[in-house]
């Protein structure tokens, strides 16, 4: 699991690649928590390179989203593969996590 941060249209975009599971979720919480710019009003999670997601991964995504929202920010997911989308759907989270096909779409939504 790896997170790479970049700025697009003034919004921090975190590209999450690899596996988000019981083995890596702890790393995610730490690395993501340190990477979110202070007072960020919007964050995009670019999931196109996310290969696998389990409930432990969903749990840390929920924690991250709740934290950003708690600080008054908004979050949008972008580019999740079919499999990741399916897991989020089974968990009933596609209604909770805004999900766009592309980073551009996510940035539009957050504008």
């Amino acid at each position, binding site marked *: 699991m790896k997170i790479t941060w970049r700025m697009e249209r003034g919004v921090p975009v975190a590209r999450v690649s690899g596996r988000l*599971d*019981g*083995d890596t979720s702890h790393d995610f919480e730490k690395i993501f928590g340190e990477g979110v710019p202070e007072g960020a009003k919007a964050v995009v999670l670019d999931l196109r390179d996310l290969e*696998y997601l*389990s*409930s432990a991964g969903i749990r840390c995504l929920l924690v991250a*989203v709740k934290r950003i929202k708690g600080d008054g920010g908004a979050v949008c997911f972008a580019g999740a593969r079919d499999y990741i989308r399916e*897991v989020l759907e089974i968990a009933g989270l596609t209604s*909770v996590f805004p999900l766009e096909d592309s980073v551009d779409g996510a940035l539009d939504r957050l504008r």
Partner: protein
Amino acid sequence: MTGDDELRLPAVIGSLPRLMDRVAERARTLGMPPERILDVQLAVEEALVNVIRYAYPGGGGEVEVRCGEGREGGLSVEIWDSGVPFDPTAAADPDVTLGLEERPVGGLGIYLMKKVAESVDYRREDGRNVLRLVIR
């Protein structure tokens, strides 16, 4: 189950990758498509994480996976532990219609496992928990 393939390791998170790799490898040799192998990993991970987190309150136990071809076809995976008796199939499903604010951060694992596996059966055998998953 035929052609059993067993791996027993300490019930700690660090054992997850090896246990999961073993199961995925077995699924590949059965010719399962990559998407389905992800489902296999998801179901098995949920079962393993449960054992690792809750089976041994004092720590120090082991978890074992046994893979084989199910009688009814597909992959059969049994997860064995000697921890406190626990039947995951009896757990109530979480409410997946709740909004973000009301949503608890945990409780999804067993639900996901039940959703992606064809069958999930629990039994107690020789003082151990045995959870059997079949994924086709």
